[in-house]
């Protein structure tokens, strides 16, 4: 039970078509795990199963020793299982400051208060400042999100997740769509994630995976076909087949 | 038994009349994503044209229907060109504002030129007779409306599922940019679909006039009914619209037979129940 997070035999099929087959993996605190796989491997389904967006046909999701399989997505977040989105989901009319403030208030259970001022709490303000500062977003803190650079929006996604003080963090392609000039800032943010946090990153960019992950899991056709060190991935025959078999252009694995 | 059959056939006729009028709106909302609250206004315009042709000019019923459809489509062209085209892709509420505005204008103008009285469309002798169908007497035009409903449903299904235009239309709906890139002239597809929807409204307005009489406030009076039918069926689904019309027609008719004083309760309670069970309508597409 030392694992902070565990999935056991997770399976899901849609109308007889199995999209996740008997997936099991475990993450201790401080884990940096990357989940990769070719398109259609079932990564999105896996994320949705883990976060509780969809219910598994079989298997369990265990967080901090507690079975959360029956819990909905929102409850899992409250238990500390937090995700970011592959395509940013931000409120284009709000500022980064407002995003983080709202998130912290929500975490503290104060977000639904009507008789309170949004910016009234100095402790919250301090924490907001801390998070935005770590991510280098202070200078855009009071601009509309719709107006800031996409890389900064990606950072804000991470910031929101951090503001929830997660135990397990699911990063869904945190650098997707970000111009290469801005990726270093994202990598920097990833490096600064709290050490005790267990992080599961889904990512296409193998350079990022190699630098970030301590362990890699490869998913193909809904199954885990490889689990091990980043350095071993490229040499694995199954992985090569999964990628090269489907993918004429094996740009990232090469 | 006789009563059940009798109620059943009434429900079927009413449902089919609703279907003919509403299916155009369902297509506009489901395929073109335009909440066209002015749909009824077009049905009404057609009714006025048909009434004028048949009653004042003494033309035949079939010719009146034909003139009404053509006339309404012609009238709708400038509206599509100058008004509707501005709201394709706008938010639903903007579309509501615009189409309610158009409805108000149509009502005001109709009232001005034709007065507030009801307009009837004289039926030909053959349709005006009551017909004895064994277990009850039913107006011949009701049989006509049922036939029209089935023909429209089948024809539309064929058009959308089986013709080249149908393929273009579906492609445009799924992804307009992609369809454009593939050489589909989406503007034309939209214009044609709009014309088809208006034509259906016109046809429905005329043949359904025995159920929903033509008068200037037609569009507002039945707006709720149309919206309800379309959303219960699932916008854009022909089969859904057929089923919605039949189910709601049956609920309405049976409710009014069994407990007329609570007829509206039955109807709207059924609507709430259906919408809660099928939040996208019977055959609505995921959005």
């Amino acid at each position, binding site marked *: 039970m030392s694992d902070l997070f565990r999935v056991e035999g997770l399976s899901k099929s849609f109308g007889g078509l199995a999209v996740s087959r008997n997936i099991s993996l475990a993450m201790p605190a401080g884990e940096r795990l990357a989940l990769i796989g070719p398109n259609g491997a079932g990564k999105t389904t896996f994320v949705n199963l883990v976060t509780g967006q969809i219910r598994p046909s079989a298997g369990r999701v265990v967080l901090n020793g507690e079975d959360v399989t029956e819990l909905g997505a929102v409850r899992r977040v409250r238990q500390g299982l937090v995700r970011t989105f592959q395509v940013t989901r931000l409120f284009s009319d709000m500022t980064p400051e407002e995003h983080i403030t709202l998130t912290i208030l929500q975490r503290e259970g104060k977000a639904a208060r009507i008789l309170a001022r949004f910016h009234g709490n100095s402790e919250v303000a301090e924490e907001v400042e801390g998070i935005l500062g770590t991510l280098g977003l202070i200078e855009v803190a009071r601009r509309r999100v719709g107006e800031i650079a996409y890389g900064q929006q990606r950072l804000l996604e991470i910031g929101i997740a951090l503001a929830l003080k997660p135990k397990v963090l699911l990063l869904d392609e945190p650098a997707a769509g970000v111009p290469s000039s801005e990726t270093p800032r994202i990598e920097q943010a990833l490096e600064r994630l709290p050490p005790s946090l267990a992080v599961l990153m889904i990512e296409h960019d193998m350079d990022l995976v190699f630098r970030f992950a301590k362990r890699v899991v490869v998913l193909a056709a809904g199954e885990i076909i490889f689990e091990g060190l980043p350095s071993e991935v490229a040499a694995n025959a199954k992985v090569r087949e999964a990628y090269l078999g489907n993918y004429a252009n094996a740009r990232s694995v090469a | 038994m006789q009563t059940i059959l009798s109620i059943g056939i009434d429900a079927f006729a009413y449902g089919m009349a609703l279907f003919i009028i509403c299916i155009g709106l369902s297509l506009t909302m489901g395929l073109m994503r335009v909440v066209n609250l002015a749909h009824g206004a077009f049905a009404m315009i057609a009714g006025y044209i048909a009434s004028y042709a048949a009653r004042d000019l003494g033309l035949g019923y079939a010719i009146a229907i034909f003139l009404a459809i053509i006339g309404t489509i012609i009238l709708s062209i400038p509206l599509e060109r100058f008004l509707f085209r501005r709201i394709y892709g706008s938010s639903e509420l903007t579309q509501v504002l615009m189409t309610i505005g158009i409805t108000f204008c149509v009502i005001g103008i109709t009232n001005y030129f034709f007065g507030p*009285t009801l307009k009837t469309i004289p039926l030909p002798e053959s349709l005006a007779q009551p017909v004895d169908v064994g277990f*009850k007497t*039913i107006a011949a035009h009701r049989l006509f409306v049922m036939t029209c409903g089935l023909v429209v449903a089948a024809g539309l299904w064929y058009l959308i599922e089986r013709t080249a235009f149908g393929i273009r239309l579906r492609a445009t709906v799924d992804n307009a940019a992609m369809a454009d890139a593939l050489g589909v002239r989406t503007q034309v597809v939209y214009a044609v679909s709009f014309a088809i929807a208006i034509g259906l409204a016109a046809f429905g307005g005329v043949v359904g006039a025995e159920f929903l009489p033509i008068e200037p406030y037609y569009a507002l*009076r039945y707006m709720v009914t149309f919206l309800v039918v379309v959303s219960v069926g699932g916008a854009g689904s022909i089969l859904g619209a057929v089923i919605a019309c039949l189910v709601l027609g049956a609920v309405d008719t049976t409710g*009014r037979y069994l407990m007329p004083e609570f*007829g509206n309760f039955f109807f709207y309670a059924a609507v709430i129940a259906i919408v809660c069970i099928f939040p996208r309508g019977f055959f609505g597409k995921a959005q």
Partner: protein
Amino acid sequence: MPSMKKLLSAAAGVLLAGSVSAAADTIRVGIIGPFSGPFALQGKNFQAGVEAYMALNGKSVKGHDIEVIYRDLPAANPAQSRALAQELVVKEKVQYLGGVYFTPDALAITPLLKQANTPLVIFNAATSAIMNQSPLVVRTSFTTAQTTTPLGKIATDRGVKKVISAVSDYGPGVDAEAAFKKSFEAAGGQVVETIRMPLNTTDFSPIMQRVRDSGAEAVFAFLPSGPTTLGFVKAYNETGLKQAGIKFFAPGDLTQESDLPALGEGALGLLTTFHYAVSHDSPENKRFVEAATKAIGSPEQLSFPSVGAYDGMHVIYKMIEATDGKQDAQKAVDAVKGLAWTSPRGPVSIDSETRHVTQNIYLREVVKGPDGKLINKEIETFPNQKDPGLATQ
């Protein structure tokens, strides 16, 4: 909100423009009616009645010029009704209020009358209870109970013992049902079933099925004029009830003259009772129809609200005569209590107890007139009918 001020001053400009022309010796009469909306035709009839009266009787009384101000109230909306009445009294300084098509609109005005020192002459709104709300109300139209009651005897006279009643589920419909039931049962008949139909009913086939299943010999119906009436009469014909010999009785609202062209041949033979038919044969009516037709524009649009308005103006003229232009609502109302005259509809009088009009009720049949158009032909007269709805209270 600078826009609000601008807009309102524009509004003020418009409204003031009307008042400038008023000379000191002009008495103003405010008429509220549905001049737009689905009931616009009834409002037009109000106006036609008023204009016909003024055309025939002059625009002044005892040297006081009369000016009529119209306000539009498209549908039953008591809040707006009150606002309009208030505005007419406070701003336009009208001394008399008239018109009002719907009962709730009248009920919204009655609480104002005392303070405004203004009588209200109702041209239409037909629920008995309005008269109890204020002693300053006079009514020249009819009540549903008044026009319906003779039908009980008419039905039994025609050998009908069992009737099914089908009315629209709203105030006047319920009134009609109650009045018919009472008079029919008093005459020895039996109402086998009462159906209340939602106002928005469009397909009446299921109702007709029920009529058939009930085994009644006749159907009594009350619906608001317009599309619903058309649908009901159509369904009555199409479902074969007419051929089956099931009779049809209704108050005359159903066959008002302006709806007859739309009802068409199917309406032939319908029996209705009412206080006025445009075809009424009298010199007074001939004069009235001529003048009112001129005012309304086309003869097909003329129907019963015009006569309510015409007689309403007569009452208002008499009130002005009695008060000699001074604003004294009670004196004005007292002056017309018991007033009797010959209206286009026949002899009428204002009941001094209820302030409601006492009049003849006619049984009419829809027939083809001399020019081939459908008319309501009066075939029987029930003289001097009071409002039974009020008499019993």
